[in-house]
């Protein structure tokens, strides 16, 4: 399906469409009469949503949020840069043998994931390839948060020998030698690639890739219509969300405690957690956030580094103040959940094949796998099969209606 993305750029991908930036106005969390249809799992009449439940569900929106430019990327929001980024994203010449492109692991037909438990670029990695839709809203990028910008995250796999395995020199040479890429580069950046150093060209290529990925914003979903109607006191519209998904929403913000970490319009607070998924792999221990912070500190490609285009460092507070802690070892970024039904398998290691498997994981959580000094948020939920169905229905309602 063709989708419209900002800047008039068109892209042949799956069913994602860009939505207008300000569809939903502020809404008051007042007690309203929600749908009172028959419950599937409980068997009785569905109780009214309480004001605190409405408020909590309200915090999962509005959608889409304002789309702001990344001040560290001077071509953020630039359609010409996005056009260059789109070309680069699918170009296997980024790899030394022409075998791997960004699309190898971030397939547009698979919501920019790859459907594999662990991604396979040049070699099989130890983590699942996350989808890229809504990636622009991240504070930290990658499962370990090793980058603090979308452009830095775009450069890392190009240079990683286990992923694309390219090089600064190779990337710069490609931009200079390919007439189409040279033309697109000059149009986007206002200068010829021949006049730019290899290092600067590589960063510019990454910023163009970021401009392209910024356009990947998920559309509104059945949940959003429900959420907005609930806040507006419109019981009729709210009732259009299937009853199972409504019950799942109540569980999500209530007894399930899911919204503590999966909160906000993207359904993630964007920080890191140990949720009891093993971080031992065949290649050794995956240190998760601990390693990500080390990568961040060692990288020249950060909001505090020389390649940022924002001299005021106006968005660099998290990078400046982030603190390494013991519990970071084995923590991974809490993923956003919009469109989650399209990005199986799940968890940082792809160990859960289905959303049902994920919910069951939290239902039967093994506390012995969690850090002994960790948070006290996670406890086995002990869900019934009906409640598991409801939570899965809610998660599926976070994708656009078919």
């Amino acid at each position: 399906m063709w989708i419209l993305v900002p800047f008039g750029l068109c892209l042949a991908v799956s069913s994602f469409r860009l939505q207008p930036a300000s569809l939903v106005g502020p809404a008051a969390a007042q007690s309203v009469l929600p749908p009172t249809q028959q419950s599937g799992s409980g068997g009785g009449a569905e109780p009214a949503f309480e004001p605190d439940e409405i408020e909590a569900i309200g915090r999962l929106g509005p959608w889409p949020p304002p789309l702001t430019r990344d001040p560290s990327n001077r071509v953020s929001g630039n359609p010409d840069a996005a056009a260059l980024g789109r070309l680069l994203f699918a170009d296997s010449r980024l790899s030394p043998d022409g075998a791997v492109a960004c699309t190898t692991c971030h397939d547009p037909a698979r919501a920019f994931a790859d459907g594999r438990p662990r991604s396979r670029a040049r070699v099989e990695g130890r983590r699942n390839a996350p989808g890229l839709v809504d990636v622009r809203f991240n504070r930290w990028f990658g499962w370990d948060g090793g980058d603090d910008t979308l452009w830095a995250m775009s450069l890392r796999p190009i240079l990683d020998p286990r992923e694309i395995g390219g090089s600064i020199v190779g990337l710069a040479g490609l931009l200079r030698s390919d007439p189409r890429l040279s033309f697109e580069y000059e149009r986007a950046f206002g200068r010829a690639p021949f006049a730019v150093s290899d290092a600067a060209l590589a960063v510019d290529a990454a910023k163009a890739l970021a401009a392209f990925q910024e356009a990947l914003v998920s559309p509104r979903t059945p949940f959003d219509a429900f959420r907005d109607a609930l806040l507006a006191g419109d019981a009729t519209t709210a009732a259009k969300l299937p009853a199972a998904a409504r019950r799942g929403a109540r569980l999500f913000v209530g007894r399930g405690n899911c919204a503590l970490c999966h909160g906000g319009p993207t359904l993630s607070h964007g920080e890191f957690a140990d949720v009891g998924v093993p971080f031992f792999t065949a290649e050794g221990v995956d240190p998760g956030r601990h390693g990500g912070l080390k990568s961040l500190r060692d990288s020249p490609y950060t909001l505090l580094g020389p390649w940022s285009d924002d001299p005021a460092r106006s968005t660099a507070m998290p990078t400046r103040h982030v603190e390494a802690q013991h519990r970071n070892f084995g923590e991974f970024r809490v993923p956003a959940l919009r469109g989650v039904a399209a990005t199986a398998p799940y968890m940082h290691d792809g160990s859960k094949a289905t959303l049902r498997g994920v919910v069951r994981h939290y239902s039967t959580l093994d506390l012995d796998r969690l850090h002994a000094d960790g948070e006290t948020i996670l406890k086995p939920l002990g869900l019934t099969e009906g409640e598991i169905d409801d939570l899965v229905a809610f998660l599926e309602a976070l994708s656009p209606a078919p």
Partner: protein
Amino acid sequence: MRCGRNRVSPTLRRLAWTFALIGSAVGPVLACEPPDLADGSGVVGRVATLDHALALRSVPSPLPLNRPFALEIALCAQNGTAMASLPKVEAWMPAHRHGMNYRPTVTSVGPGRYRAEGMLFHMPGRWEVIVEIGKDRIPVPVELR
């Protein structure tokens, strides 16, 4: 460990919440009320101990969820002496046993006035800002919805 550093005695915590509730119900309780926070606008917490009184204001206000913010701190000694050192500031969620993932830096912006940069509350709920001045470790309850 972070949660170890953050621990404050339950008695002191109850006392802090009591003072906070009184403050929000009947107005300022500070013996050394900082004048520029006296109108209460944007104040997210105020606490008095035997030794100190303080008030906190978030910038921006209201306190944002999952967004960086700064805290303006007005701090004074009950005996009227000047502050001898910079306070330290951190925050945690007692019910969840975790703190922020960020370490704020504190600068002096005037007599008894400080600014803590680098705060970020990534979850809604009950937080405690811990202001440490000398041997006085003062928990300031802050509710973030």
